């Protein structure tokens, strides 16, 4: 690192977890400051987590003190008091540790021009966590601004082991030119030890979360110092936590950690973990990143890992030492998941990680960013365009597209031009853009950022207002999404923070609860579920087609595959297997696409729509990462026309426009793009009011300006992460050229895990009608007396 720094090059350092890469990133800074005292800001450090910034500060102060250096290191996050923030602008520390959000806010301040001019280095930690997200877009735009203010600034990216370092070097580089970035690879540590749990060679038919294995998992916990039990969603975290406690005969201390818990609750669990007071913690991706919170010696992954990179990273949470193997135990939920677990283990052993899908930056993020830049200082559109284009995600942005963004940021777009509140930028006689009013800068800072939480209600223990002193003071436990909260009534109970809570009342955005009993509901949280990656899917297909590997599999899995080969056939390496069979009085069609849950979900909607039109009376479908299964009153004789790729042109747009996906995506872009204000803490405007005003604007724009910038942005989002159109297109292409149709006499072994999947979608108004008529005719026949 010192070497690269001395040559003044940008650098990307990839190293496995625990290799001490954060400190390595700071070494050149410390060396530089030790020899050449620097007045003002020297190095910016950007972390994805506030807590990580604080942790790094602690870890930096020790070597600085030991080296006897006089270097000021400070953090600046959303938690930093206002007076310190003001002081930092006037008299900055040499090293400032911050987050992308706080950096963006800082860059919108006029003082930032002077403050940043002398910056020598910027260090981006856990760069892989930003990558292809809107936070990454924002960060990349901020880097472009920093580089403009401090042209000699050196960029340093720190990352876990990644599949495509060259791709990341391009992301990090100014003007997306990877040749300017030196890639430094740290030595790999000892290979991790990954095992797959199969109790007595049994793997269940259905299920996702390995909950059946609670007793065995509990034994593993008892045999280790400290275990992290990773699950894939927050709802499952609650369920697994409860299952483990039901088997916890020795009453070992076990905690729970997920993103919907109140920050105080999370801090408490983290502290207990660091202090060695816990034996296990059930966690979601909220613990994927960063800190060393304790002496973890075992990671347990409940359910399939969904990606090799994710598995490797989670495994790395155990044992932050280079010379010992990290241990991970995967508990597959069903037989497909066993194959997926095996595939992920193979991929990690082969060093084949999942590539990151770089995509063009979000236009909503860009719209937000340009207003922030104008807030810092008046700027000419040409200069702004040049600066923005030097950020990798926007390297391909045409002047035309840029002008549309600028027009939106300035006026709100023509459908909204009449409203003064959407007019934010005005050009002066000098051609420079300025904010229309000074108050807009403050409003921008209150609303900036790219993370939009789902509309949520607070879960408050007790009857008082949280945070308000009084006789009965409520304690905020965390949040549940509005969608779930809307199903709750007083007296209902639900599982949260590992407890069963009973609803005692509602008050604005608060749900008041007390400890409850009975059969609780489990909150659902939008998102959180990652689809199986494409590479892993290919490996799962490979395992199915490699009989030599079957011998080492648990009996249950081997017999399942053998039986499938006998009664139907196994999916090939690159075909689409479609099975049709009858069960009870319905016809089923199973499609093995291995394209991931979102793509299969979309496929289910489109195919059943076509079936409805063909008079096949579809009733419903269910999607998993591996397959889509639908059922109908009439059989599908020839599946081919149902998969005609024209479905993407003809029906997708129509369906997407009517689906809630687009509306949901719009809510997010409307906030990021600055059309709708965020709910501010302390302001009594419930989250619902926010979603309604976004919905109203959505309806107005759909009708009056369907090509509005933010609708375009919403379409892009909806097509990407929510419906995974790219993978669906590949799947349809595959089905078009290589579809294998098997008519089976009965349900096939491969179809069973899907049929046992929860989350069935119901379709088909026509079928309802047919069934009602049928039911009445049956009754009439039965009651005939002639």
């Amino acid at each position, binding site marked *: 690192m010192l070497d690269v720094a001395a040559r003044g090059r940008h650098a990307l350092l990839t190293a496995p977890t625990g290799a001490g890469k954060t400190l390595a990133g700071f070494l050149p800074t410390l060396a530089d400051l030790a020899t050449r005292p620097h007045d003002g800001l020297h190095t910016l450090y950007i972390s994805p987590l506030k807590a990580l910034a604080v942790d790094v500060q602690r870890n930096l102060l020790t070597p600085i003190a030991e080296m006897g250096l006089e270097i000021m290191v400070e953090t600046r996050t959303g938690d930093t008091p206002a007076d310190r923030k003001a002081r930092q602008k006037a008299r900055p520390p040499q090293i400032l540790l911050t987050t992308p959000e706080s950096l963006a806010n800082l860059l919108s301040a006029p003082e930032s021009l002077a403050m940043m001019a002398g910056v020598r280095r910027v260090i981006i930690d856990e760069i892989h966590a930003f990558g292809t997200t809107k936070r990454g877009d924002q960060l990349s735009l901020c880097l472009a601004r920093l580089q403009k203010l401090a042209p000699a600034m050196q960029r340093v990216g720190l990352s876990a082991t990644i599949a495509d370092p060259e791709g990341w070097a391009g992301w990090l580089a100014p003007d997306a030119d990877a040749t300017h970035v030196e890639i430094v690879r740290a030595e790999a540590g000892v290979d991790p030890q990954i095992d797959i749990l199969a109790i007595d060679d049994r793997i269940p038919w259905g299920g996702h979360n390995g909950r059946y294995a609670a007793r065995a998992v509990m034994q593993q916990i008892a045999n280790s110092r400290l275990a992290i039990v990773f699950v894939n969603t927050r709802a499952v975290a609650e369920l697994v936590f409860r299952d483990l406690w039901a088997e916890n005969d020795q009453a070992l201390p076990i905690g729970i950690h997920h993103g919907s818990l109140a920050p105080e609750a999370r801090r408490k669990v983290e502290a207990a973990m660091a202090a060695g007071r816990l034996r296990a913690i059930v966690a979601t991706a909220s613990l994927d990143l960063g800190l060393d919170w304790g002496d973890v010696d075992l990671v347990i992954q409940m359910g399939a890992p969904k990606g090799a990179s994710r598995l490797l990273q989670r495994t790395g949470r155990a044992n932050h030492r280079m010379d010992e193997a990290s241990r991970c135990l995967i508990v597959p939920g069903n037989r497909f998941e066993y194959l997926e677990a095996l595939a992920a283990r193979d991929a990690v052993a082969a060093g084949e990680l999942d590539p990151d899908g770089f995509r063009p930056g979000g236009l909503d993020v860009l719209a937000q960013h340009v207003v922030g830049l104008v807030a810092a200082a008046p700027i000419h559109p040409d200069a702004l365009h040049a600066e923005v284009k030097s950020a990798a995600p926007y390297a391909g942005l045409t002047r035309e597209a840029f002008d549309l963004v600028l027009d939106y940021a300035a006026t709100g777009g023509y459908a909204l031009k009449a409203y003064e509140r959407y007019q934010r930028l005005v050009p002066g006689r000098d051609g420079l853009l300025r904010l229309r009013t000074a108050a807009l800068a403050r409003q921008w800072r209150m609303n900036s950022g790219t993370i939009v939480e789902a509309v949520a209600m607070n879960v408050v223990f007790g009857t008082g207002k949280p945070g308000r002193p009084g006789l009965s003071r409520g304690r905020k436990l965390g949040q549940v999404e509005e969608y779930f909260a809307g199903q709750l009534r007083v007296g209902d109970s639900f599982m949260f923070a590992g407890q069963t809570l009973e609803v005692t009342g509602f008050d604005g955005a608060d749900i008041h609860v007390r400890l409850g009993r009975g059969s609780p509901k489990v909150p659902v949280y939008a998102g959180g579920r990652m689809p199986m990656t494409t590479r892993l899917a290919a490996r799962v297909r490979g395992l199915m087609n490699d009989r030599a590997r079957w011998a080492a599999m648990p009996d249950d899995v081997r017999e399942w595959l053998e039986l499938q080969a006998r009664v139907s056939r196994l999916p090939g390496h690159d075909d689409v297997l479609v099975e049709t069979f009858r069960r*009870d009085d*319905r016809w089923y069609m199973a499609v093995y696409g291995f394209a991931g849950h979102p793509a299969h979900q979309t496929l289910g909607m489109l195919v059943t729509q076509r079936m409805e039109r063909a008079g096949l009376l579809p009733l419903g479908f269910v999607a998993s990462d591996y397959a889509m299964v639908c059922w109908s009153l009439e059989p599908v004789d020839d599946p081919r026309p149902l998969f005609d790729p024209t479905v993407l042109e003809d029906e997708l747009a129509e369906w997407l426009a009517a689906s809630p996906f687009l509306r949901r995506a719009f809510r997010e872009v409307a906030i990021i793009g600055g059309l709708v204000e965020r709910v501010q803490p302390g302001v009594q405007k419930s989250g619902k009011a926010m979603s309604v005003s976004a919905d109203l604007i959505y309806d107005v724009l759909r009708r009056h300006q369907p090509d509005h910038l933010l609708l375009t942005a919403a379409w892009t989002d909806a097509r990407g992460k929510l419906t995974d159109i790219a993978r669906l297109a590949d799947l349809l292409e595959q089905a078009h050229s290589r579809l294998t149709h098997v008519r089976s006499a009965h349900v096939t072994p491969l179809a069973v895990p899907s049929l046992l999947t929860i989350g069935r979608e119901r379709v088909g108004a026509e079928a309802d009608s047919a069934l009602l*008529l049928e039911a009445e005719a049956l009754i009439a026949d039965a009651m005939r007396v002639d």
Partner: protein
Amino acid sequence: MDVAFSFAGETLVPLASGALFWPAEATLLVADLHLEKASHFARKGWLLPPHATAETLAALIDAVEGSGARRLICLGDSFHDQGGPDRLLPEARSALMLMTRNLDWWWITGNHDEDAAAALGGRVLSEARLGPFVLRHEADGGDARPELSGHFHPKLVIRQRGRHIARRCFALSPAKLILPAFGAFTGGLDVADPALKAALAGPAEALVLEGGRLLRFPVA
């Protein structure tokens, strides 16, 4: 009209919207409009789709125009709460007032709305008689006279080929006919629910309009 049925010697025509037309009296009956339910919940912070009132009124206008009715009888719970009429949007208010002026309009009071609707025109009655029928909001099991009522929001729930299907329905027993809720977002009660069976006071059928036919399901 092949969906017509006979009750207490009168010929009645159920409409798909949940309204009941009585041709001999040129009368249209509807139950449980629950107007302004959305705004009622909005005040508590629960936002329902705000178009419910407009949708319900549009359906009502369609039913009046389609049937040619000259009298309209609302069988109670026309507004979701006593304050509902004050929250009507101006267009909804004028549409309603126009209808109460042009038709012989009877508001039977319910348990939600009492006499709230009086300000909009029409007559407000707690109970009424018309032809052979007693008209009231909630069926009275102790009254043996033929009766038309609402209140329960009956729906038929059946399971056929493993599929649950729920539909608004008319619930008919020898002396009682209970209308489905006409309003949007009003939910429903299974016609086989003990509370509904008690109110029907005798063997009953659920009547459902489907595919242009009147289907009859005995209530088990």
